[in-house]
């Protein structure tokens, strides 16, 4: 037990090298002077400069963020309701269908989700005249549908692990159902809801396949723009864009990690102090 697991630690080193060497290589070559991405031609930041003059990229990034915020918010509202339904309502008509619909998007290949949504939008336009054109609305609907499943699963598992007695205690103390929800249940599961929103936001921001099927002319998101460029080959300005995106996400995740770690450490210290004070 006291022996260092040498084999496991070397596996970890290999695994993390595998994870990060391609990303590091991508970042390094974004500072390449040469147009060739794979051969080093000296240090330069010219590709970053070009990037900020590119209106197309900035427009696409703004559209992506708008879709991500709207769809993540909708997905969080719908997903929380679905999670509550699955965790707290044991019996209602169509429960089996409902739980199937909530979990199926998680395992459905994206291509199928994409073409089925597109067929729906085209047929709806044919039959009822809506949606007139595909773009922001259709992409947002598709993203919401897809990512609400993740929110529902997160909320459901948080509710399942939550002590139901505290809801009963609130009721026992005279809270009406609505008050129980707002005073007890939602505050307790708030971290799960926030995590769900973040996940839905990231999924939407990252999505290529479903967006590719459900978007229309004039509504190009950032991943679609990158996708269309990348299909033609490797170019240094994509490296620069990738570096920016990875840095933003990386800093965000690391900061969130540190904040969570601090909160956890504080909680543990409080508990220990409480125990010490009790003795």
């Amino acid at each position, binding site marked *: 037990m006291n*022996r260092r697991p040498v084999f496991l630690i070397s*596996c970890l080193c290999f695994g993390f090298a595998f994870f990060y060497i391609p990303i590091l290589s991508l970042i390094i070559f974004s500072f390449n002077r040469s147009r060739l991405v794979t051969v080093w031609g000296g240090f330069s930041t010219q590709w970053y400069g070009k990037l900020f003059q590119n209106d197309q990229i900035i427009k696409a990034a703004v559209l992506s963020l708008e879709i991500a915020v709207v769809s993540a918010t909708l997905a969080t509202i719908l997903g929380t309701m679905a999670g509550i339904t699955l965790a707290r*309502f*044991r019996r209602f008509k169509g429960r089996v269908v409902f739980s199937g*619909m909530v979990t199926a998007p998680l395992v459905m290949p994206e291509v199928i989700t994409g073409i089925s949504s597109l067929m729906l939008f085209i047929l709806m336009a044919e039959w009822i005249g809506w949606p007139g054109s595909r773009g922001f609305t259709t992409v947002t609907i598709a993203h919401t549908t897809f990512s609400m499943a993740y929110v529902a699963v997160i909320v459901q598992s948080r509710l399942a692990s939550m002590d139901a007695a505290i809801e009963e205690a609130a009721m026992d103390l005279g809270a009406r159902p609505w008050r129980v929800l707002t005073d007890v249940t939602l505050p307790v599961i708030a971290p799960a809801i926030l995590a769900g929103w973040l996940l839905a936001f990231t999924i939407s921001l*990252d999505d290529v396949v479903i967006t590719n099927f459900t978007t229309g002319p004039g509504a190009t998101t950032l991943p679609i723009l990158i996708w269309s460029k990348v299909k033609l080959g490797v170019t240094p300005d994509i490296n620069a864009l990738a570096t920016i995106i990875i840095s933003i996400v990386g800093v965000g995740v*690391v900061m969130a990690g540190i904040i969570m770690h601090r909160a956890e450490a504080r909680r543990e210290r409080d508990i220990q102090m409480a125990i010490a004070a009790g003795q």
Partner: protein
Amino acid sequence: MIEGQAGKGSWFNRRGWRDLIIAIPYGWLATFFLLPFIIVVAMSLARRAEFSPPIAFLDDWPFVRWDNFARLFNDSLYIRAYLTSIWNAGVATFFCMLIGYPMALGITRVGKSWRNVLLMLVILPFWTSFLLRVYAWMGLFGSNSWFNKGLTSIINTVLPADMALRSLPMMNSNFAVVLVMVYSYLPFMILPLYANLEKLDNTLNEAAMDLGSRPWQVFKDVTLPLSIPGIIAGGLLVFIPASGELIIPSLVGNASDPMIGRVISDEFASARDWPMASAVAVALLLMLVLPMMVYSHFENRAQAAGEARP
């Protein structure tokens, strides 16, 4: 809460309430998930038409046509695509397991503060763009990249001099597809495995050692059998998306040996054959249902065993 009593003692037992909370997500999913799904299934039995939308199943109604499914078996393109998908996804799943299992186990064995750092390092690539992670490899596969050159010179050291290679033809190959799949889906293997291994009671390891097992035997007799649910969960989380993968084979794969996701997309967009695309999709889903049923079987069994414990 007592099961079967429809939330008796639960907070909103009031009908109006309950119904609203159920109805809103229910309605949304029925419209935007179930309905499209039904359309795909119906479409797979329809006939292709020249006009737009390119379907003609309403004309034939109620005659169900199996032509599209028959074509799946008659045209070798489809069978090869399915086999390529299963093979690529299977190999990728195997290597994810091979790399991911010791990593997950390793993370459970380091100190608590290190553990959080390592977990974050596993999750970090998962939050960065999927597309960009695939893109990162496109640069490495190129014939004059440092990675390709390095790998070529390593291989040349074992090859006789007259057979020495100038570079490896990695781009646009199944090798590239599998490698990038392993790279992209490795976190999906590590995270459920870690969650499973972390929950294992360390005193079980100690008990086995106390009864005379050497570390390797402890792993074989205790850790491995108890982590089977994690292996299955991780395996499915890799296999299912990998078998329907579209982006990776499109960017680094061999266009003459396509995977099934590519076939669906091409039938739909290029050939404008919606019914055929739907049939290929339905067949893919049927193919994936089996492993999913295995998974839910194990899940239920694990849950039943867990509930039997006081």
